[in-house]
């Protein structure tokens, strides 16, 4: 493989977030790479049946990619790629497909392009493995929401009111467009029913361990309400509406 001077070839592990069609037979692959953050690269001929790329660019495929920088071009170019792990089969189930699409959409929306974020990469891999092993949506997504917010510095305080700073006591409130939790006195008019302090503490504790360890315990229902709250905060920070959030709600 010849590498022209001034056009470095980058090698990195990556997760495929989504692909879009380009021209007659190419794909633009949106990736979260371990070393270089989020990138978009062209994979030439990837839609042809006899393409050398095969099934590599199906959503959420974990691969090793060799990416080529082209001078004066916006898009990078993928030179080659090897499969590390496929997450294809689990997504045949629509419920899981909605969940993985949510992971992709949030990652694209919250992480800026070409800004390295290895912890976010490791988080995404762990969450995909969690979905694959457990077939469960709730805890893997709750874990993802918690850590995406935490890594971005947006994780709300679970103890003190976002507005007045006082201890929230037993009930913590939030509403549409919330960035944090507020006390009974500060609650917004369209507030959801309060989150019990216990649920919040359980969630923080659960997320302080590796996801696979959490998934080995039997407490499946733990995180649903807290997860919905974290999703609301993610929506607030994503600025534009997230398409997949509504679809997650329909799936329960």
């Amino acid at each position, binding site marked *: 493989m010849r590498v022209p001077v001034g056009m470095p070839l980058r090698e990195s592990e990556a997760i495929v977030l*989504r692909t879009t*069609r380009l*021209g*007659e*037979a190419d794909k633009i692959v949106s990736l979260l790479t371990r070393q270089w953050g989020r990138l978009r690269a062209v994979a030439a001929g*990837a*839609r*042809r*049946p*006899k*393409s050398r*790329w*095969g*099934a*590599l*660019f*199906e*959503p959420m495929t974990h691969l090793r990619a060799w990416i080529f920088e082209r001078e004066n071009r916006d898009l990078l170019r993928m030179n080659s790629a090897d499969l590390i792990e496929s997450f*294809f089969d689990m*997504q*045949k*189930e*629509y419920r899981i*497909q*909605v969940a993985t*699409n*949510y992971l*992709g*959409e949030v990652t694209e929306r919250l992480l800026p392009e070409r800004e390295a974020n290895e912890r976010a990469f490791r988080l995404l891999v762990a969450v995909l493995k969690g979905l694959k092993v457990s077939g469960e949506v709730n805890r893997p997504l709750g874990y993802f929401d918690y850590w995406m917010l935490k890594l971005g510095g947006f994780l709300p305080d679970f103890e003190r009111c976002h507005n007045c700073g006082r201890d929230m006591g037993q009930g913590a409130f939030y509403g549409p467009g919330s960035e944090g939790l507020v006390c009974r006195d500060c609650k917004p008019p369209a507030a959801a029913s309060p989150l019990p302090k216990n649920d919040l503490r359980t969630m923080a504790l659960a997320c302080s361990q590796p996801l696979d360890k959490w998934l080995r315990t039997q407490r499946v229902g733990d995180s649903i309400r807290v997860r919905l709250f974290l999703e609301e905060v993610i929506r607030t920070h994503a600025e534009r509406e997230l*398409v*997949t959030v509504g*679809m997650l709600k*329909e799936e329960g």
Partner: protein
Amino acid sequence: MKDYAEPLARLIEELKRLPGIGQKSAQRIAFHLQRVPREEAERLAAAVHEVKDKIRLCSRCNNLTDRDICEFCSDPTRSADVICVVESPFNVVAIEKTREFHGQYHVLHGALSPLQGIGPEQLKIKSLLERLKGGVKELIIATNPNVEGEATAIYLSKLIKPLGVRVTRIAMGIPVGSELDFADEVTMLKAIEGRREI
């Protein structure tokens, strides 16, 4: 876009919106259209108009047609016992090329793709369920061999098998990640012949 006279620039801009057409191709086509005899350019414009005026969805299978019921649905030699479900009207063409399928079609107009806001509600599934009440024996699912197509196949199979209809999926002689439109006749034929129950 000050490089061209305004009408030419506008044509180039419109052409660039077409799938697979970039700046260079758009320029080439625009210059070509400017050079050809007026009648030739007008035939193209008229053809576009006619498609917009006359083509609609078949009220039974959602394929593109210029009548209420399309040629496949109204052909008495085609069996109404077997329905082949595809994502797009393109795929009907690919399957017809094999000359071996003699049933009817149902076009979903997409596949499950949450990122694009496409869930079951956005696909032509309700009208498919209606058709199944007419005593259909087999449903062959020929969605694309990618995550979206597979998820759609499994979703339909879960929905429809309890109704007592045999549900099959075309064989994956067609590589994952590619598109049915690209499959040659032989591959497509093998895929239909090798279908299995899901």
